[in-house]
């Protein structure tokens, strides 16, 4: 448990207020810097600096950031008092504060706190709740907030805060001992949050009680100001009771398995058939894109199956319309023959371009695309069919068998700069009988770039198998989504139930 001495500053002087009452001020000199230095020498790692002037007026004093700057040369500082907006948070952080303490603003404008956590990091913001019996008080304790402590803590957690400082107003500056029952209950209810106690600590035994309640830190004010001889023993508590860091868990990987609805388009409409024939109309591509985006699709793939050169303008226009409509990545493929084709799609707003037949015919296309447009934008689509115990590569929408070994082509494509492989099993495509997990697993073993499983998506179990057995990084399907067999969310739920990470 960290022991954090408090330094409250009012008009340049170090003070304590009794129960937050500005009429009951005790002064302790006008040299916060020397005080901070003394605390640091005694073993304090951090001080809790409060601008009481600003806490009352809501105006961050002109010299307060300077004081923060001076103190941070001596010791870590968490600073607060009257923070009104995002810019003031930044001002104090830029002055060197390790964290900014936010109270009133948290309850009045939680969205600002949420944005502060997002922009500056959750370690940089501490939520401060001043509790008076059942209610949390704001504006320097003068106003009620209509929040009870637990709902305020929940709100803080929703804002992304990890550290909460709870001050018991009735005990603060009274030297009556901390309200350890309150803190213990809070820590028990919110074990994931760091709870710092504040208010009423008199003695080392008070600290021991809080430490046993598993509090993470305690702010101590008046006791140390009144009796500096306590300093050494107070700071000593940090050593005795400092929790042993749990062994660092092995680094995991939280990368989600991507679920990708695929939209086959021709003449500006979405179609999908069985084994690349038998087209059925399933709607407007942009409307479908928006629907999938709202449904939780991680990415979209559009394949232009017309693939005649006169259709290029339509697909470029499609890229542009989709880019206007969605805020997730999407890939366009089908009929891309040159780096110029790919460039025009990227410039229109596509995130990635998939090449298939053209790359098989001239593998250097992958190198040129990777060099000129970037590997991350270059997807190599591979259509494979089982043959003689292996797989061969098909081109021209499955019409021509090249006789090329699919494994060798996958490796070659990666070596030449493809940033991702979209692997479609021609045998399974449109059948709904499950992905070719052998094919996927074999390719996945050969390459380091992500592999998208395609062709054969049927029941929810087939998607789980693509990941479990095929070890796919992403799974693509069309018909099951277009015709509403199930939703993207259903697939993700099935994967989550099978313990795979998904974005839900």
């Amino acid at each position, binding site marked *: 448990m960290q022991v954090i001495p408090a330094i409250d500053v009012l008009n340049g002087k170090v003070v304590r207020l009794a129960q937050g009452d500005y009429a009951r001020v005790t002064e302790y000199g006008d040299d916060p810097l020397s005080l901070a230095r003394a605390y640091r020498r005694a073993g304090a790692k951090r001080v809790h600096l409060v601008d009481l002037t600003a806490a009352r007026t809501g105006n961050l004093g002109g010299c307060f950031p300077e004081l923060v700057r001076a103190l941070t040369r001596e010791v870590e500082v968490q600073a607060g008092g009257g923070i009104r907006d995002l810019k003031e948070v930044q001002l104090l952080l830029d002055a060197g504060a390790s964290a900014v303490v936010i109270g009133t603003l948290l309850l009045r404008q939680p969205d600002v706190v949420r944005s502060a956590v997002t922009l500056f990091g959750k370690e940089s913001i501490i939520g401060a709740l001043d509790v008076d019996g059942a209610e949390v008080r704001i504006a320097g304790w003068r106003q009620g907030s209509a929040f009870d402590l637990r709902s305020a803590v929940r709100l803080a957690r929703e804002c992304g805060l990890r550290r909460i400082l709870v001050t018991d107003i009735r005990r603060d500056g009274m030297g009556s001992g901390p309200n350890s029952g309150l803190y213990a209950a809070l820590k028990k209810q919110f074990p994931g949050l760091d709870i710092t106690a504040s208010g009423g600590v008199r003695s080392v035994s008070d600290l021991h009680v809080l430490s046993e309640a598993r509090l993470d830190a305690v702010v101590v004010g008046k006791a140390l100001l009144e009796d500096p001889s306590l300093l050494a023993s107070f700071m000593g508590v940090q050593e005795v009771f400092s929790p042993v860091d749990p062994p660092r868990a092995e680094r995991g990987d939280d990368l989600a398995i991507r679920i990708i609805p695929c939209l086959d388009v021709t003449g500006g409409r979405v179609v999908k058939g069985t084994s690349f024939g038998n087209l059925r109309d399933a709607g407007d591509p942009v409307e479908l894109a928006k629907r999938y985006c709202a449904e939780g699709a991680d990415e979209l793939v559009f394949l232009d199956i017309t693939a005649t050169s006169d259709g290029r303008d339509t697909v470029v226009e499609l890229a542009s319309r989709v880019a206007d409509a969605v*805020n997730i990545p999407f890939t366009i493929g089908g009929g891309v023959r040159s780096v110029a084709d790919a460039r025009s799609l990227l410039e229109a707003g596509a995130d990635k371009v998939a090449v298939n037949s053209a790359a098989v015919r001239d593998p250097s296309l992958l190198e040129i695309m990777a060099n000129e447009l970037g590997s991350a934008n270059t997807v190599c689509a591979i259509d494979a069919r089982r043959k003689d115990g292996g797989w061969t590569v098909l081109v021209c929408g499955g019409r021509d068998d090249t006789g090329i070994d699919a494994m060798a082509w996958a490796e070659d494509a990666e070596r030449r700069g493809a940033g991702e492989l979209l692997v479609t099993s021609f045998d399974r495509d449109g059948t709904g009988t499950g992905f070719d997990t052998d094919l996927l697993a074999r390719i996945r073993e050969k390459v380091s770039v992500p592999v998208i499983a395609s062709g054969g998506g049927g029941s929810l179990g087939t998607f789980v198998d693509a990941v479990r057995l095929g070890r796919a990084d992403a799974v693509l399907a069309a018909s099951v989504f277009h015709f509403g067999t199930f939703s993207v969310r259903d697939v993700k739920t099935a994967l989550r139930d099978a313990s795979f990470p998904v974005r839900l």
Partner: protein
Amino acid sequence: MIVRLHSPQIGILRSSTGNIGSIERSLQRLGIASCVVGTAAEIGKTDGLIFPGAGAALPVMNDLKDRCLVEVLRNYSKPFLGICLGMQLLFDTSEEGPADCLGIIRGKVVELPGTVRKPHMGWNRLSTGEYAYFVHSFVCAPTDSRVITITVQHGIEIVAAVRKENFFGLQWHPEKSGETGDRFLSFFVRLCK
């Protein structure tokens, strides 16, 4: 483009290789006025600047040098947001090239180790709990860990966001990260007022 009186003028830095359309569209969807800027004079008129770098470090740095923008960016005093390569260029040097970068944040940019899957592509869970979309093979290694604001796990811990004073960097793509990205962009724009 929606132009409102008193709304901050967000500049999007034009780059020789990067695709700036996505970020432009994101801001447009959020109702945030923006304009594409390319010269020191244009940059000087902005209340905030977004650098959606894409491509490789060396050519983009060379391009900035050719356009005499290195000092302009270093001295930029309003909120600045570097995305992906735009974040990496905030550091001293990059192994990608190798290249000398802007040197605004101490540290270097290194290639992801061979032990993890490369590129780091897809949606990963940020230390904030939200999911964001990543596509990159190089990662930032700040000298001072205090600049790190968000991390992410991909076999190793990867720096997902940094901040030093008015310079913000995101390794992920807010323009492609659904609501997570929309939220970050609108929060960033708040700082530009």
